[in-house]
Every structure is written in structure tokens, then in C-alpha cells.
């Protein structure tokens, strides 16, 4: 491993050269009792070594520009280089968030146009770009549901989430002050409608659904589900993490959803940055609109754009300023580049790639890694490693680690929870057929190798900067900062 930047520090070295104090000194400007005695022990190091440190660190990462990254539910599609160029324009990058709207018309227009485009894609009329990520979009969405019911003097206490739901859904429900009720999954991988009916009553505020869901299955009963919820006056929430599957084919709004969040860093290709930034805009129906966060970007009758704070029923803000604008620039560039056809082609190709890879894996590895739900998938699909574990004695985790040696990032593993030894595989539309073939063959090789000698996979990875790490030890005796 590389020594930390703190370990490379040597007293007296520096990269920063301070501008001179060009004003008459006022030594009483800050009374002694407010002054820090000991400066923070930041590194002392010159520019060349900072550059080498972080350049070297960077090379220890697997990344999308290096190879295949089929991380299910994360939509690891290509990040166009154009987006970094337009985001870096000084008119964007150096625009202060409190600049008067009259002098930020370009930015407000961009946001407004993005709102319109997202509304059209989701089939819901009103969009707020405010939330910082999907999870914050979820929280906003659930608080909108609360506001909607409170405005009707209804005080509901429960929210339903399928057992296939992503962890953020139940976690959000709790943070918003509701109780989570789990709904089961039927044999086709959709919501178990009977179970749903049995749990729905007028104390239920909402159902949070991902469609296609985290099994890569499109819920055929979506209309029935919607009416069940609407009959009791509950809202239907669409977790948009899987929107990449259906653009141009179907729209959450048309399916009966009231509230949608988008993950711009998934469907609309914001680079993930090793864990953010992203953005989680939300779209809502007319009845939810009054409660949207503040401020809203609006176009005035004279054609100018503005920030509207005058929203008496708004739930208010969940964060500062106007949202992750830098992310909006990139995602809007993507929408402008692809246009209507291009976006539809994205979903078509994403689904084609997923079904092709599933077919290849059925041929090459079907015996040990069968599909959890053997049917046409959407943009992703789930395999179960159960048979592999029995027959070959290696677990999904071992397969994943061995894939690292073959130069692939593993799929999402052990999620969704209801599938034994799950692998959730999402190839995305930007991968080539050759890449999908190579991945399927790599998996076949690993299985064949394991039949010979399971220890190779069990002890994998062998070629990475470090090998398996002691996560239990890390949690037992947490060392989360450099001792200085």
C-alpha cells in the first residue's frame, strides 16, 4: 500500500504560496481567546509529491474507463467526456448560488429545460431538481406524502415496501417517521398482490416500488397495484433507480405512480466519483405539486426564469441552495446529445444486452448459476449461486473475487436479499457484445477451474493491489483516522 499523505509530510515543505497581506494589519482583529493555539496538523508537502501521491492512489482503483462494471442496480454506463467539459465552463463552475436570478438566466433556463425533459420522460407534470441523491429524493417523496395527507387532516403511520426493495426505501420510511411494513414477492418476481391487499388499509400512507424491480422484473400487475393503493387514498412512490430499462417504452406516471425519483448518476450518466456526487430529482402529479420543496425553478410569463420561494404549502428545503447544478449540466448534456430516439435506444439496448448476457450465461453456466426467475428480464437480472455453492463449494463472494483477477468488476452480490447467494447483473447499453461474451466466458472458466480446485476462487483475488481484507477486524477495532 501507499503511505498516507500524512505519513509523507515533512515539516517545512509546502505547495501553497500565500498572496501577500496587502492591507494594513490590525492585530486586534481577532481577540486572543478566539484564536486557535495549535494549527491543524495538515500535511506539509510540495506539489510534485501531492500529484504523485494521488496519481498513484488512483491507479489502485478499478474504474469504468478501464473495464466492464456490471454492478446491478447501479447502471454503470459510459460517462461521456463532453460532460466534464461543459460542466467546467466558468459560467457554470464559478457561478455563485446566490447570484440574482436576473444574472443567472442561463443556469435557470438549463434547470427549467431539464425539468421539462425529465417530466416528459417520467410522464409526470412537475419536477423538482432539489434532492442531492436518490435517497434524499426518497425522503423528499415520503415527506411529500405526509404533507399531502396532513393537508387532508389524515395522519397515517405505515408505509409498505416489498422485500425486494433497496435498503434505502425502508431506511427512508423510518427517517420520515413512518413504520415499515414488508410486502412479499410472488412466483414471477412481482409484488404478491394478495399479501399487498391484506396489508393495505387507510393507515397506510404509501407503497414504495421499483419497476422494473431489483430482480430486473417488470411487474405485470402494476395497474392493479396502483388501484389497490389509490383506493385507500395512499400514494404510489416510484424508485427510479431502474428507469434505464423503460425510457421511451413506458412511463411511471402512466403506470399510476404519484411520485418518482430519478438517479441522474445512473440513468443520466453522472460519473459516480467513487461514491458521489449524484442528484435525485423528483417528479410528481398535480395533487402532490403544492408541497414540492422550495425554491422551484419557474418560467415567468415574460419568458424569464426565476426561483419561486412563494410556495406556502411547500415541505421546505432538505438542503442548501438549488441542488447539484453541476450534475444537472452533465445530465442535460446527455439528454441533448441523445434526444428522443437516443434515449429510447438506450433502454432498448440495455434490455437487449441484459437478455443476451443472461442467455450466454444460461448456456455457459446455467447449471451452477441459474437465473433466480427464469423469464425475459429487463435491464438487469439475478442469478443464484446456490447450486454453485453445493456443487463446487465456492460461494458467490468467491466468484466475485475471482472475477477481479480476470479484470472484471463483479456484479452486485447478496442483493436482493430474498435470493440465495444472489448475483445482480446489469451490463448497461454501452457495453459491446464482445465484452459481454468475454464476461460470460470468464465466469465459465472460473466455474471450470473451481471444479478442479476450489481453493483458487476461495483465496481470490490474487492479482489485486491488496487481497482479501479483514473487514470484521476493521469493525471490531475501528481505526478511522491517521494517528498523528
Amino acid at each position: 500500500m501507499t503511505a498516507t499523505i500524512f505519513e509523507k509530510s515533512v515539516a517545512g515543505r509546502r505547495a501553497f504560496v500565500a498572496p501577500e497581506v496587502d492591507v494594513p494589519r490590525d492585530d486586534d482583529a481577532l481577540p486572543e481567546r478566539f484564536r486557535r493555539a495549535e494549527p491543524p496538523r495538515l500535511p506539509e508537502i510540495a506539489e510534485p509529491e501531492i500529484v504523485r501521491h494521488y496519481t498513484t492512489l488512483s491507479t489502485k482503483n478499478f474504474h469504468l474507463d478501464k473495464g466492464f462494471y456490471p454492478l446491478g442496480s447501479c447502471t454503470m454506463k459510459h460517462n461521456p467526456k463532453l460532460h466534464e467539459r461543459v460542466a467546467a465552463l466558468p459560467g457554470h463552475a464559478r457561478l455563485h448560488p446566490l447570484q440574482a436570478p436576473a444574472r443567472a438566466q442561463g443556469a435557470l433556463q438549463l434547470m427549467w429545460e431539464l425539468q421539462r425533459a425529465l417530466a416528459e420522460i417520467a410522464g409526470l407534470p412537475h419536477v423538482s431538481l432539489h434532492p442531492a441523491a436518490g435517497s434524499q429524493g426518497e425522503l423528499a417523496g415520503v415527506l411529500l406524502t405526509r404533507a399531502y395527507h396532513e393537508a387532508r387532516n389524515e395522519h397515517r403511520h405505515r408505509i409498505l415496501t416489498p422485500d425486494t426493495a433497496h435498503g434505502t426505501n425502508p431506511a427512508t420510511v423510518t427517517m420520515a417517521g413512518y413504520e415499515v411494513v414488508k410486502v412479499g414477492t410472488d412466483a414471477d418476481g412481482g409484488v404478491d398482490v394478495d399479501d399487498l391487499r391484506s396489508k393495505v388499509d387507510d393507515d397506510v400512507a404509501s407503497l414504495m416500488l421499483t419497476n422494473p424491480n431489483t430482480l430486473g422484473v417488470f411487474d405485470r400487475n402494476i395497474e392493479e397495484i396502483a388501484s389497490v393503493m389509490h383506493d385507500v387514498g395512499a400514494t404510489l412512490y416510484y424508485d427510479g433507480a431502474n428507469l434505464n430499462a423503460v425510457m421511451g417504452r413506458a412511463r411511471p406516471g402512466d403506470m399510476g405512480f404519484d411520485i418518482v425519483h430519478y438517479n441522474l448518476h445512473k440513468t443520466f450518466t453522472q460519473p459516480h466519483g467513487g461514491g458521489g456526487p449524484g442528484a435525485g430529482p423528483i417528479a410528481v402529479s398535480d395533487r402532490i405539486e403544492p408541497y414540492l420543496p422550495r425554491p422551484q425553478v419557474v418560467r415567468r410569463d415574460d419568458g424569464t426564469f426565476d426561483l419561486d420561494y412563494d410556495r406556502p404549502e411547500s415541505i421546505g428545503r432538505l438542503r442548501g441552495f438549488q441542488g447539484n447544478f453541476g450534475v444537472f449540466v452533465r445530465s442535460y448534456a446527455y439528454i441533448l446529445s441523445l434526444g428522443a430516439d437516443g434515449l429510447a435506444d438506450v433502454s432498448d439496448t440495455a434490455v437487449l444486452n441484459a437478455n443476451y448476457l443472461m442467455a450466454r450465461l444460461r448456456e455457459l453456466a446455467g447449471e451452477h448459476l441459474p437465473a433466480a426467475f427464469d423469464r425475459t428480464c429487463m435491464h438487469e437480472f439475478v442469478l443464484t449461486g446456490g447450486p454453485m455453492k453445493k456443487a463446487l463449494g465456492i460461494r458467490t463472494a468467491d466468484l466475485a473475487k475471482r472475477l477481479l483477477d480476470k479484470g472484471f468488476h463483479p456484479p452486485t452480490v447478496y442483493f436482493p436479499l430474498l435470493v440465495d447467494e444472489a448475483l445482480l447483473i446489469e451490463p448497461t447499453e454501452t457495453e459491446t457484445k464482445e465484452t459481454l461474451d468475454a464476461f460470460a466466458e470468464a465466469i465459465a472458466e472460473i466455474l471450470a477451474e473451481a471444479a478442479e480446485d476450489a481453493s483458487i476462487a476461495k483465496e481470490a483475488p490474487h492479482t489485486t493491489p491488496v487481497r482479501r481484507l479483514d473487514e470484521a477486524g476493521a469493525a471490531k477495532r475501528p481505526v478511522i483516522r491517521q494517528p498523528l
Partner: protein
Amino acid sequence: MSRYTSATDADREAMLERIGAGSIDELFADIPASVRLDRPIDLPAGKPEQEVYGYLRDLAARNTSAEDEITFLGAGMYDHYVPALVDALISRSEFLTPYTPYQPEVSQGTLQLMFEYQTAISELTALPVSNSTLYEGPSAVASAGWLARLENKRPRFLVSRGLHPHSREALATTSHGYGTAVEQIPLAGGVTDADALREAIGEDVSAVFLQQPNFLGAVEDLERLAPIARETGALLVVQVDPMTLGVLRPPGDFDVDIAVGEGQPLGNRLDFGGPSFGFFAAQERFLRRMPGRIAGETTDVDGRRGFVLTLQTREQHIRREKATHNITTAQTLNALAGVIYLSWLGRKGIVELGDLLLQRTAYARRTLTALDGVEALHDQPVVREFAVRLAAPVDRVIERCAERGVNPGYPLAADYEEHEDGLLVAITEQRTRADIDRLADVLGAAVAAEREAVHA
């Protein structure tokens, strides 16, 4: 428009055959006809790269950025110089394009920078533990509120009126969900009213929220306020400006429970308000209740040092409804910019820069308050930002200044009805003495002109 996809017609045919489907339409058979979109998406056709660039460049040109005017806007985000090495390093694909580091063996770059970031934040705040970012400042304040809720379930939050208005609002929005009431502690002479705080404090108070320096730029007397706030066992949460921590005593000096703040000043762009990052540091005892990712040091099977995401049992993907927070995607790339920036600034630099801001701010305050029709809004010590009162309509004064290429600052009226004549002026190392003198010149003239206009 295929430019990001590779499937040729030949590829599609071959793939469909392998799948055993006759067409791509067939793959979407599960979507009930009644909910299918039976028309193209109503958006324009795609554009060549050069046209997308041109369109967005022209939009950008319609904004007046810090590149186009001398700006004294601050109020939470600041026009600091971002050194070139930050952009050069964070734009490397290796940092820019990976997901959250779920596979540590191939994510040591990201995991180590998170660890270094956590170290830098605990050094800045003088608190023992830090997570590896939340979204941004105000939502970090709200997250501190949620931690307090988990901690003590008490029904009241007390927030200083000196806390950033966005932080106050984010806290109110989210606490409404779980039912904790938010009460404000007024300011007296520009700083949090200690007596009012003593009045309001009690066994039923979950947490007290202060800001250092506060929204009006004033340095709060934490020495005095902290004991009052914590007297009855409430958590003390302080939002701090990281750029001031080279010169101001850090939260750790006052045993605050949680320090949060907006990370943008540390090597991040203004970006019209985001993305940036929110930092979250706390006392050891809150470690297992912290929100967000935390990187920890460990060893691999060969005994080599390495880093992993740790204490994940706090998190949604494991604990689901019992998680300490719902956050997953955070702001790692912005944290990288932050830690590179702090390494560039260094132990000496953060003090030198803090001192430069302190001196220029003092100079600017002296110079502006010497103008007719401009007076200090409070007399508290200030470090990098200060508030003044104008004897003329603030918005019209700002307009006049803007016409002359100077943005004098942020009008307080919208957030402080009691200060509708208030203007908040921020200083960075990019605002030289000459810029400050020009502000004085332009502002003085604008105020004079507006006063005339009234008398006329």
C-alpha cells in the same frame, strides 16, 4: 444516434437469435399494453457533440459568474481559488468513474482518500471521528438532528438564529417527519443571545444548533454558550466554516458533540450551489450512530495494510429500516477535492490563508463602514465575512453596483426581516485590497445615488 452504444444491426440480430427472441419489442412484452408509451418521447432529436457544446456554452455565457464580476457574495459558499492540481487529479477516470468502493481489493485509491479525508476533517475540527461526507452543509445539520433524535428522543431542537437559514430550514423540514419541534434562539448584538438560550434550555431539549462564525459573520463566544447548551444533556451541534479553522478555535476545544459544515470552500467549485460536500465530525461515543460511509484501516490476508468501508451495520443496505441514515451515494469526489486542497494548503497555509482573510475582512469592514450611509450591523469580531446596514434600498444599491461590475454581497432581507437594510459581504483570497477599494468606491456611489433619488 449511437455514439455511446456499440450494437450494430448485425450485433442486434445475432444477439436476438441467441436470446431466442424475434425482435426487441418482444423483450418488453411484460409491459401491459395499456401502460405502454405508444408514441415517441416528446423531445428534440439528438445533436452532434459540437452543437451540444455550443448550446450549453451559450447558456453558460448568459450567467454572470465570479469570472465576470468582482463578487463579494458568500453566505455559505465562497469564491476561493481552486488550484489546478485539484482539477487535474479529480478528473482522472480512476477517481471520477468508479462506484462506491464495495470491492475493497480494487478500490484502495478511493478508500485511502476517504481515510485521509476523515483524518483531515478531524484535525480541522479537533474531534476524534469523522465520516466520509454527507451531501452538503444544511443537510449535514439535519442529519445531526436525526442522530440526536436516535440518541435521546427528546421533543425540542433549539437553533440559533445565527445558524444558516438553509440549515434551519432543512432541519425543520426533516424533523417535521419524526416530530421534533424547532425553536429559535434570537441574536443579541449580532451573536446568539446567551440568556435566551439559558431560558429555553431544558431536559426536553434534544439538541442545540449554533454556527461559527454565524450567518452574520460574527464570531460566537462558544466558551460561554457551550456549557449552557449542554447543561441539561442536550447535544451541542455546531456548524463551522472550514476555512476559518486555521485561526479560530475548533469545535473540539469546546467539547461540542457534533461539528458539521459545508465543504465547498475546500477546493470545490461554486457550481451554482452544488455538488459540494457536507462534513460530519463527532465525539467517539457517537461513532456507531454516525450517518454515511466510513473508511477504516485493516490488513489483508498477506498482512498488508489496506482500507475498507467499515461499521456498515449502521447502514441501510444491511440494517434497512433500523439503519442510522438512508444515505448511500454521497460526495466522495468532492471530498477528494477537499483533501487534495487541504494537502496543498498544508499546516502553515491554512493559518496564513486564515490570517489573510482576517486582515482583509477587517480592512474591508473598516473601509466600508467609513462610507456615508454604510454602518456596521454588529460590532462582533469577524473573520471572513461581515454584515453592514445601508441607508438606502439594498436591492437597488446592488443593482447599481452590478452595473459597474461589482457584486457587493448578499441582501439579508429575505432571511432576516429585522435586517431588511442588511448586506452580507464576504472576502476571499481572490478579493485583493484593490478590489475592496473598488467595492468601497462603487458601493459608496450607489448608496449616495439612491439617497439622492429618494430626496429628489
